[in-house]
Every structure is written in C-alpha cells, then in structure tokens.
C-alpha cells in the first residue's frame, strides 16, 4: 500500500473488508450474467473463435484442361503434376505437405480436383485488428501534424491563420464524427474519385477517406491540446529568448515546443485512445476494421455473445498499453 497522508487515513480492517466486497461484487455479477444466459438457452461455443484468428484454409487445385496425368514429381519441396491434353500440356504445383488425388495415367476432365493443400491464414478478427491498427496509426500521425500546425496557427497574431484554426476546430468539434465520416465518404469521396476516374487514375479506397475523417477529427482536438501546451509555457522564457535576439519561430522551435510537447503527451495519448475506439465507426463505410469484422464473424458463426465480448477485449488490448504509457509519463512528470 502506498503511504498516505493524514487526510486519507483508512484503517486496515475497513480497507480489507471493502476490497473483499469489491471482489465478491465482480464475481457475483459474472455469475448472474452466466446464469441469465443459460435461462434463455444460449449455448456458448467458444471453440468457434480461434478459427476467426487463425485458419488453415484448404486450397483445391483443379484441372483446367481435359487429358491424362503424365507425371508426378517431387522436387525442392514442391510437387509438380503434369497433365497432357490433346494438344497442350499443363503443369500444376503444390507444397510437399499437400495431398494428391490422382495417379499417373488417370483420365482427367476439366474441373477435376487434382490435389489439395492447406495454407495458414489470418482469420477475420486478426485482419480486423490489423486494419484498426493501420487506420489508427495513420490517423494519429496525420492528426498530430494537423494539430501541431493548427495549434500554432491558433495562437498566431496573423488573423487569417488564427481564424482558420478557430473555424476548423469549432466546425469539427461541433458535429458528430459519424456525420463527418458520411460527408467524407459520400460527398468528398464521390467527388474526388469521380475526378480521378475522369483523369484516368485509380480510385482511392474507402479506408483512406476513413483515415482522413479520423485525422481531421482528432486534429481539431490535438489543436486545442497543442494550444494549451504552448500557452502553459511561462511567458518569461519567451521574453528571455526574444531578448537574446531570437525570432518568434526560433523561440517556438527551440524553447516553446520542446517543453510544450513534454507537457501535452498525456492528453495526446488520451486522444489517441479515443481515436482507436472511434475507428470502430469506419465499419459503416465498408472499412473492415475490428468492429465490422466482428459483425461479419457473428453472421457466419451465429455466436454474438462471444464475439462482442472478444471484440471489446481486443479494443482494450489495443488501448491498454497507451493508457499505461499515459500513467507512466504522468508519474514521471510529477517527480522533478
């Protein structure tokens, strides 16, 4: 137990009793929940889940022509099956671990399965985690960049920069993220992709419009965080650096930002925890992130309870390291 001040004294008996009460409460809640699910005849099938993280998918090798199996050879850990038709000849290869379904001299028709092999593959949920991570990392980086520029613009003496930053922050913070995602996807994406197509380029995928929506959303909050960080720097230091002949940009770069960034790390990390959770909204524009993957998993497995719990826990696993990091730097900042 930490040493506490006189103001927060608690006697050990009360402490232990309360702690026991907490643990009993948690166990009771879980028990009641499980009993309740039994009462409505829900069958828990946890064994279905691992397949959604990692699968050994069976691949078939089908003949593309009609003919006779001419030879089967094993070389360099691959099996080659040569099928000779009337005029042409085809070679099919598979890994050594695969199983053959034909022998030399067999008659083959088009579409017959010659062999099967298994290949390990990431399951639906694993892919969802990767997409969520990808979206979150890109959005965080772009969000920081936007926020840094926005924060500096926000405190600029130049009215154009200042008002641009104010309008941006107020517009973004004043409307729901869901609506912003729709605007990015159904308005901006349609226009941009339409123009790209007209000019003969490829379309940009929904994922990037999702990243854009999240980045600009997070950027507005980061702008305010950066602004407060900059304003927290003692004016005396700014005066000292300016009195030495530094320009305001030099002062910002050498004096203000290095200190401000250290101070804004905790709220910044908090913002990125929010961002990871907000990325769950991107499922509605067909980005297959974790939540969308969970919904698809439920459709195929018909086990919603397991999936939603696992989904929540996976988000927790993504955000937990960040919140640990926040606590670590907050503790480190308290001690001089």
């Amino acid at each position, binding site marked *: 137990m930490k040493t506490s001040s006189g103001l927060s004294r608690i006697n050990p008996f009360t402490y232990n009793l309360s702690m026991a009460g907490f643990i009993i409460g948690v166990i009771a809640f879980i028990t009641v929940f499980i009993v309740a699910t039994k009462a409505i005849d829900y069958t828990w099938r946890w064994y279905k889940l691992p397949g959604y993280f990692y699968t050994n998918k069976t691949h078939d090798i089908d003949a593309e022509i009609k003919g006779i199996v001419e030879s089967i050879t094993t070389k360099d850990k691959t099996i080659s099956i040569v099928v000779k038709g009337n005029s042409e000849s085809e070679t099919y290869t598979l890994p050594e671990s695969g199983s053959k379904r034909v022998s030399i001299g067999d008659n083959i028709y088009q579409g017959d399965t010659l062999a099967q092999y298994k290949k390990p593959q990431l399951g639906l949920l694993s892919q969802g985690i990767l997409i969520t991570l990808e979206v979150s990392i890109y959005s965080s980086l772009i969000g920081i960049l936007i926020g840094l520029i926005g924060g500096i613009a926000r405190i600029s003496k130049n009215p154009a920069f200042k008002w641009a930053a104010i309008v941006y922050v107020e517009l973004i913070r004043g409307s729901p993220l869901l609506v912003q995602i729709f605007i990015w996807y159904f308005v901006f994406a349609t226009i941009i992709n339409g123009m790209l197509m007209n000019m003969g380029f490829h379309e940009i995928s929904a994922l990037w419009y999702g990243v854009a929506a999240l980045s600009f959303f997070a950027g507005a909050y980061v702008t305010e965080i950066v602004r407060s960080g900059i304003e927290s720097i*003692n004016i*005396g*230091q700014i*005066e*000292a*650096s*300016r*009195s*030495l*002949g*530094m*320009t305001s940009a*030099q002062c910002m770069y*050498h*004096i203000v930002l*290095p*200190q401000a960034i*250290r101070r804004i790390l905790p709220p910044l990390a908090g913002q990125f925890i929010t961002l990871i959770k907000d990325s769950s909204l991107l499922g509605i524009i067909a980005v297959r992130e974790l939540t969308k993957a969970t919904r698809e998993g439920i459709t195929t497995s018909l086990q919603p309870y397991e999936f939603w719990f696992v989904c929540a826990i996976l988000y927790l696993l993504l955000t937990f390291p960040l919140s640990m990091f926040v606590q670590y730097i907050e503790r480190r900042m308290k001690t*001089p």
Partner: protein
Amino acid sequence: MIKTENLYKTFITANGDKVNALVDVNTQIDKGEVVVVIGPSGSGKSTYLRCLNHLEVATKGHIWIDGVDILDLKININKVRAEVGMVFQSFNLFPHKSVIDNVNLAQKVVRKKSKEECEKKSMELLEKVGIAEKANVFPAQLSGGQQQRVAIARALAMHPKIMLFDEPTSALDPEMIGEVLDVMKSLAKEGMTMVVVTHEMGFAKEVANRVVFMDEGAIVEEGTPEHFFENPTHDRTKLFLSQIL
C-alpha cells in the same frame, strides 16, 4: 547609446481603465555609463526598462538604441535585441536545457557560431560568473543566485553593447544577493553600459554613475549618487529615501 524622448506608455486594464505607466520620459544614457533606476513599486521603472528592449511597445515617443529608432516598424528588432542583453527578476532560464546549453543557444541560433566557438565562449563566461563547475547541470538544480549568474552569462554571450537588469536580486534569498551584485560590479568596471532597476541602494551608491528616481510613470529626479542620497531636492525623493533607508 540610449536616448528616449517624450516616451509614453499607457496600459488598458481588463475593465477598460487606462493606466499611465510612463509619462513623458526623457533620458540620455552614454556609452559606459551605469544608470540605476529606483522608485516605488508601480512607478514605471520596469516598464521603462522593458520598453528599451521592445518587450513592451511604447505608446508614444521615441527610443534610440545605438542610433537606431526601435519604434520604427521597418527596423529588424531582433538585430537590436541581439545587441542588448537583458536579465530578469525571475531568471527565466530555459529549464529543458543544461546550463551550458542555455548560454550556447542564442550564440548558435542568432549568431550562427560553430559548436566549438559557442562552447569555448560559454565556458569562458561561466568561469567569469564563477559557475563553470555546474556547466552540465540543469537550472532546476541550481540555487537562485547561481541561476541568476547563469542568466547574466547567457546575456553576455551575445557580446551586447548594453545590459539591462530588471530587479535582478529581488527574487533572491538575502545571502545570495552578494554573489550576483559582485558579477554586476565587475561588469561595470569593464565599462559595460548598464541600466539597472533595483532596490539595492548599496549597489547604487557604489557603482552607479547616475541614479534616476521615478514615481507614477515620470522621472522625478536624477543625479549622481552623492547628490541623490545626500541632498535630494524633491520632496517625493526624500520621502522614498526615508522609507527605505
């Protein structure tokens, strides 16, 4: 070296009142002069000093620093400031940089000197203010007096022609005042042009060429320390001196 003419500074407070911080201040400070500015709190002496460095923008009048009119919007104020060192009441060291980096920074950034040149100069100055052994520690680990001496070294690193001191010993514990004043005295002996706002009458008597007494934003009386402390002419000066001595 420094000349002000009909200098006015008016602050507007949050509830719209006007406060006249400087009222028609005319001064002329020559090269090598040490001028001590004294006066009760709120008399405008700090505002006057800050105007000389353009940290405060004067409302009306003229300020020439080494012949340059610093209220002219066309001049590059950073160039003027680089030639004018300033030492603050609250030291204002950069807490994220070590002592030597505090002294190095402006030499590197403003004067564009090489790392070796900066460090050589910085060590020289730290030795001069008697704190060379602390070159690699951070400001938070120093006492107030040590921090203020670093701040003086930092200002000197720019080779300033003028040094401005804004109550450099007011935030110090009594036993540390001496070490800072000693550094300032040695600077004065070397012929540095100095403007010092202070409550240290001993320093004024010993070092100043001229003492300026301000009250309610205006210069009430000025003269040599002998004249000023022994037979002041103005009643307000007499009252002030009787209160502090």
